[in-house]
């Protein structure tokens, strides 16, 4: 009785299965790699998939659990990418242990992104619905564009930061001074510390943290705000505060994804495709198709939808011509499965029939209705 009353158990089981799926996929990929038959195309997809899984899972916190539409998630990824890269380059000579350096860089990327999340969130989270979507979109673009006019250099006198022009940095080049972030050219020479194992570990950490968060007092407050803002306030929940917490935590993990991204590329620059609205919308597509407030859905949708176009690309021309068509059809099918109640009910019925006969449940619901 006591055990069945606590709803933690089925939830824990659900989360456990999600984590298990990730581990199984990871193990399968490890086998595949070890067998030597994994082509370079697939190798190249591994870290990006981890990056976008982290993006989708964290965005789901805002869209699925908080119930607010944010179109600026890539902006926070951008902040994480740049700040972590700057840190890694500056400390490359002082911190020799690359793993330790990368771990700190990831934390710094996450923390700066979270700070931006709070700065953006304070004015923006007063808005709702379409307004919030538009303003977050704008903020994401502003962050991206800011990085394109930012110049950062170091010399013996310390760190120099300027806007618009590298000459304004006043760097003393004679003593090994150099520009690290060179406006639109971005950052070159970030140590390539990212790899699939680190990516996988970060995915697991993100999942566990967000699962625990959602299934805690704070997470319940956030879900309550989504379900009914006025009722949540009426039971003493500070709506703005909890919205901000969710937004900042999601931004933190976007920053972590950004760090993974910038340490996986030789030269980092901010474009519409990597940190602009295109990316924000792509991640939103993963979240929506994977299912609101379904972390497992976000993981699976991201893997399928990110890998699919790339995988289809390598087949012969016949299939390649239909690449986008196949992609579109899969998008539509996933959308139908996730957001169509009739299909959902059918699927659930199917599940119930398979698992256990629904007879055990029926009298209970009848009794409910009678009272």
């Amino acid at each position, binding site marked *: 009785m006591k055990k069945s009353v606590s709803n933690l158990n089925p939830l824990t089981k659900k989360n456990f299965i999600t984590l298990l799926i990730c581990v199984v996929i990871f193990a399968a990929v490890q086998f595949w790699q070890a067998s030597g038959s994994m082509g370079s195309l697939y190798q190249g997809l591994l870290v990006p998939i981890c990056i976008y899984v982290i993006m989708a899972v964290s965005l789901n916190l805002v869209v699925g659990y908080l119930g607010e539409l944010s179109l600026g998630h890539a902006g926070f990824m951008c902040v994480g990418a740049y700040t972590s890269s700057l840190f890694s380059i500056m400390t490359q000579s002082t911190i020799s242990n690359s793993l330790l350096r990368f771990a700190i860089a990831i934390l710094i990327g996450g923390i700066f992104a979270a700070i931006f999340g709070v700065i953006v969130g304070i004015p923006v989270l007063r808005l709702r619905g379409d307004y919030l979507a538009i303003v977050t979109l704008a903020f994401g673009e502003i962050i991206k564009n800011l990085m394109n006019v930012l110049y950062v250099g170091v010399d013996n006198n310390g760190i120099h930061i300027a806007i618009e022009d590298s000459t304004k940095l006043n760097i003393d080049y004679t003593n090994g001074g150099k520009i690290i972030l060179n406006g639109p050219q971005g950052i070159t020479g970030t140590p390539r510390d990212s790899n699939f194992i680190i990516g996988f570990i970060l995915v697991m950490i993100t999942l566990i943290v967000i699962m*625990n968060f959602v299934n805690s007092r704070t997470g*319940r407050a956030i*879900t309550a705000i989504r379900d009914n803002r006025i009722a949540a306030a009426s*039971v*003493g929940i*500070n709506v703005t505060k909890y919205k901000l917490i969710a937004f900042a935590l999601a931004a933190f993990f976007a920053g972590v994804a950004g760090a993974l991204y910038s340490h996986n590329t030789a030269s980092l620059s901010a474009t519409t495709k990597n940190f602009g609205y295109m990316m924000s919308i792509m991640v939103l597509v993963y979240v929506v198709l994977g299912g609101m407030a379904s972390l497992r859905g976000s993981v699976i949708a991201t893997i399928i939808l990110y890998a699919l176009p790339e995988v289809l690309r390598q087949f012969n021309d016949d299939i390649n011509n239909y690449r986008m068509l196949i992609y579109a059809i899969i998008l539509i099918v996933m959308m139908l499965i996730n957001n169509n109640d009739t299909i959902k009910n059918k699927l659930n019925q199917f599940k119930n029939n398979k698992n256990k006969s629904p007879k055990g449940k029926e009298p209970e619901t009848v009794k409910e*209705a009678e009272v």
Partner: protein
Amino acid sequence: MALLEVKNLGISFGGLRAVDGLNLQIEKGTLYGLIGPNGAGKTTVFNLLTGVYKPTIGTFALDGEVLNGKSQAQINHKGIARTFQNIRLFSKMSVLDNVKVGLHNNCKYSAFAGVFRLPSYFKQEKAMNKEAMEILKVFDLDKEASVTAENLPYGKQRKLEIARALATHPKLLLLDEPAAGMNPNETEELMQTIRFVRDEFDMTILLIEHDMRLVSGICEQLTVLNFGMELAKGETSAVLNNPEVITAYLGE
């Protein structure tokens, strides 16, 4: 001193004076009824007392502390909890979680402790589960603890709203048409539950209701509103026999 002291409270929407100079004193432990025809301003009074609307004139105080101007959340912290005429549950959350959200400020642990599953998380969650189940039991909802709120039958949803409000440990409980949509059996049962809550939790309750059987059955004092203004007030039986009340409200 009365628990709730409302002085000259009023609000206008454009030209409409939805509530106009309301005075109300509710003693601790009273079951107080607020009645009146549709559109009289009853729900608006609740919205004023819970901070959904800010009053244009007047003040209200709970236990001597002036609360007008404070936010919804702050007013709840000070001890006023409510239910809604149009049910507002956390519809996608379980029945148990709905009550646990109500317990939010009574069993505290940090977000950090929640994420990293520190001992305080387990301790407080256990305490929350225990108390939430006890509250659910009062409303005969304990067997539905894991049901999603939106799947509850209507009458039980109304009860769950009361349970959730009670979980915030209020001093004053505001119930907006708790029996709306219930059949006579359910209403009878609800009357007993409301009385039980008052006695067991030592609660002060202000309720809006149209069901005269419920009003005359459990309310000790009444205020009748008409066009935002007080029409009559006093002992239930006296008010219900007031000829003015009968013509303005009961007669129609």
